[in-house]
């Protein structure tokens, strides 16, 4: 009798705990939005031909900027539709400049072009965004982002009302772009996406976007042209577009640790200098653009928190009491660095930091380990199914025991 009762009690308690755990897991995977873990950039130059030199220079300038601000090469997908550097008409072989002063060669040693020439097609572009690749496509040519990624998508070329021309032969339409972004959202390929387009009538390209977490900047409104900034009379072509030029001018003043917000970038565009009206679409974006630093997209810098006490910072969910010390300079104490999202309520350990963190409270360690394990499990339904099967076997065992 007693044995049976104990058995009964055991089975019930196991059942309830299992139930609770599965429930909490499934609920947490839904309510807990992912936190910012990494940054990606997709930089696309869509036009061929020598007279479109400036589009390649635009893209390479952006490439240089995001690299300078901390996005590593393996997280940048660079698509260049033509090779101006090796064009026979280029007076400076294997060099590309975005300014007539020729101080900065954009096509130096460390340029990794992922898609070049005729590879830059609408199909490949959509494949990169949605992640539907042929098996043979190497990892370096894929956008391996996850639900914690911030992605910068920069495109430049010739466009018109609701389209962007690729390679002088095909075009990307606004609903193609919107559909790709929607698929990305469904596949949890990004947390936040900034689309920046420098083309004529760029604003029209965003008209079909619906997915939350998308922020869009265009160089010109509907019916407006985007103009080139200046002509390099030595090379004999225009070398940079106005919108990109002033974007770059904004970023040249920044370094990796500056806190300039997106709104300050937006307000830096002067319609008189641009000769067009820059357009921002923020209605799909939940955060306040005044508080989001540009490096959320254009760099790979996340908030670093310097804490005196490792224990208090890691001791669970009530970290709202923890005083943050947001450092804007490089933290010298690597061991105690932790990364958090911009939302203080949702916190996760950075996997790299995990290993070096030591000497905490064992209870907290244990709890963190469980949390991590559960967050590692993505497939909630399967756990529920296993749980139900387990429950059935337990019930069967317990009834068999009791009988």
């Amino acid at each position, binding site marked *: 009798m007693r044995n049976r009762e104990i058995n009964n009690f055991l089975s019930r308690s196991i059942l309830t705990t299992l139930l609770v755990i599965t429930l909490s897991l499934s609920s947490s995977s839904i309510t807990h939005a992912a936190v910012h873990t990494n940054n990606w950039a997709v930089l696309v130059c869509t036009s061929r031909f020598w007279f479109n030199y400036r589009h390649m220079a635009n893209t390479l300038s952006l490439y240089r900027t995001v690299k300078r601000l901390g996005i590593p090469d393996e997280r940048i997908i660079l698509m260049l539709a033509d090779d101006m550097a090796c064009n026979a008409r*280029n007076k400076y072989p294997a060099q590309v400049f975005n300014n007539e002063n020729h101080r900065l060669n954009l096509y130096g040693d460390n340029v990794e072009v992922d898609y070049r020439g005729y590879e830059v097609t609408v199909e490949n572009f959509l494949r990169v965004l949605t992640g539907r690749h042929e098996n043979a496509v190497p990892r370096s040519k894929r956008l391996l982002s996850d639900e914690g990624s911030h992605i910068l998508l920069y495109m430049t070329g010739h466009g018109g009302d609701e389209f962007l021309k690729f390679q002088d032969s095909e075009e990307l339409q606004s609903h193609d772009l919107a559909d790709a972004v929607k698929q990305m959202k469904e596949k949890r390929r990004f947390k936040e996406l900034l689309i920046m387009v420098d083309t004529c009538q760029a604003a029209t390209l965003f008209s079909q976007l619906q997915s939350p977490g998308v922020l869009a900047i265009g160089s010109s409104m509907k019916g407006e042209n985007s103009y080139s900034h200046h*002509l390099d009379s030595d090379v004999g072509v225009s070398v940079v577009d106005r919108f990109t030029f002033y974007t770059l001018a904004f970023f040249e003043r920044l370094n990796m640790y500056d806190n300039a917000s997106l709104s300050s970038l937006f307000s830096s565009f002067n319609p008189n200098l641009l000769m067009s009206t820059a357009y921002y679409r923020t209605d799909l974006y939940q955060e306040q653009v005044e508080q989001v630093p540009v490096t959320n997209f254009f760099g790979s810098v996340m908030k670093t928190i310097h804490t005196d006490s490792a224990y208090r910072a890691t001791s669970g969910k009530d970290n709202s009491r923890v005083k943050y010390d947001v450092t804007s300079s490089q933290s010298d104490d690597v061991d105690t660095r932790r990364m958090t999202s911009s939302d203080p309520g949702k916190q996760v350990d950075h996997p790299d930091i995990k290993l070096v963190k030591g000497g905490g409270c064992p209870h907290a360690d244990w709890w963190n380990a469980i949390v991590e394990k559960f967050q590692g499990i993505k497939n909630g339904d399967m756990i529920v199914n296993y749980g139900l099967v387990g429950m059935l076997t337990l019930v069967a065992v317990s009834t068999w025991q009791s009988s």
Partner: protein
Amino acid sequence: MASTPETEGQKPKHRPIVRIGIFIIAHSFIVSVVCCTAGVLALLLLPVLAKKTYVSENALMPGSAIPMITDQDVSGANNFINELTSLNLKSQSLNIEIPRLIALHMANLGGEVSYHMFQNQPNKFHPLHFFTSTDTEANNVNQTCESYATNTVGIIRAPRGDGKESIVLVTPYNPVNLSPNETLSLGIAYSVFSLLTQVSWLAKDIIWLAADSQYGQYNSVAAWLKDYHTPSFGGFGKLHDDECHISNDIATEVSDTLRRAGTMAAALVIKVANTGEAGEQDALNIYAEASNGQMPNLDLINVVSYLAVHGQGLRVQVDKLVSLLDSTWLKFIGEVFETVGKIARSVNPQWKFGISVKEYVEGSATLVSSLYNQALGVPTGSHGAFRDYQVDAITMEISPKLFSNSKGRQTELFRGGRLVEGVIRSVNNLLEKFHQSFFLYLLTSSNKFVSVGVYMIAFLLLVAPLPVLAASLFSDTIKSYVESEKNEPFKSWRWLYPTKTVFLVHLWGAIVSLLPYFIYQIPDSQPTSRLLIWASLSLFILFVLGSFFRARSAEWALLKSVTVSSAFIGLCLMSVINFATAEIGALLLVPMCLMTKPWRVAGKVQSALNLVLVIIGFPGATFFVVKSVFGFENGSSLVEFWYWVESLWAWNSATYIYICMVHLPCWVLCIYILLHPC
């Protein structure tokens, strides 16, 4: 069963388009008058409707790069000119020494040099080779070394280009009598060549052709182009005897085998005019017309004139008929258009089609010259040879104020060199053939043009009455037959008789066009006698044809109807081949065809008018009238007419075919109708 007696009694109702047709045919007289007037008016309006030119191709980007030509290039060119001049004074066998000097300099600059030897091929009339190039019947009779002319060709290979395209510079010069202008044009080409051997931005190869023009500027270029485009096996040099080669001191550098670069993207013929005009600025004359009224792509002209005006401050002008500039009637029309434009602007400020009198007169003078040059079908320079190979080419003739002193020459070299360099750099940016802009246009000034869509309207209005009149005449005669109730079979086939007549006359025209070939077989004949033989033979054949096929005299109305139809078909066909010829032809032919009527039927006034029209309509008479009105050249001898016609067939001009096979038969038929015994 279903139809009621009322509906059966009614005529079947035609579709609206048929009813419109019937209405127009019924009012053919008014339609003819309105359309012809509108056609002439539209032609007069063309200078007003001309649009500003613009560089249509994005890739060209003229003037986006600063010219890089340096003092070094220019001083080199200056030395080159001095050497040429001193050689010209000293040496005896200039036709060998000058090509050698040029080749030496080309090689020293770093170009690949080759000679191209060719012989003079006199223009002959080959009736069976019309529109095709005459094949190489090597004139082996007097093959001495003296009979060869030598083109010198220098090629710069684009350092990083794919070697599939090239740009050609042509400088015609006459080695036997080298003029200072020709040396200057050679110097300009030298300075550009000197620069281009050093630059790193070439995507197309550069060919400098120093064309030996002792047998004519066109012939030298045409001979070179022909050999360039003819695949030769075993080397070109085998054609000649060994002793004819220029013995070269520069040894292996110069080859006698024809060297080739890629397909030609564009060609520039550089010339320097003899005397500068009295204008303030230096001027640049552009010649573009090639054979049969073909024009180079408008973009090429745009690039040259843009760079000349904005880059070098030259005054660009195209050929115009100077004698028209102070014609009073043109000024009067201009004033009318100006006042109409002013009134229109006062009604609505948005309407801006006003044009000042001066602009109008200059525009018309240029337009007439453009029309004439295209209609003639004879190229206006050696650029015409390129058009035969679908290469866009123009002649740039720089006319400086004076360049007698060396400083003036230096600035001319700089200016010309910069201009040519700019054009080459712009064309170098090109990715495909010129295709973006117009090929069919008329220029009304160097920066204004009338496109095919506009000028076609004038022509169509002019020829539109012809089918209307033909249909109206035909339906009237058929109706009169039906009314007269003659019991003849095949009433509706009666048009076949006049058609036979018309066909015979056109056949006669074809024979007349072939006659000169046989006339040329008569040795040692004078132009006048040739012309007389031609005329008498033609008349003789006409009578023979007429007597052999004694056509039963058909009704004049049906004959006129068929004549008018054939004129319409001929004009429309010609408008496809050479618009300008068709336009001028329509101006002469349409009133003549519309008005003609047997003198017994017509009134006195109309008969007199018909007589005037018929006299003017004869090609020879037209030639003299046009010449005396516009003052093309002096003298009005028959010889000149013969030479004019000779030039037409020598240049394979379709205008010759048109005159012989459309215009002349229609003229004969009009006379036939005029003298018709009703």
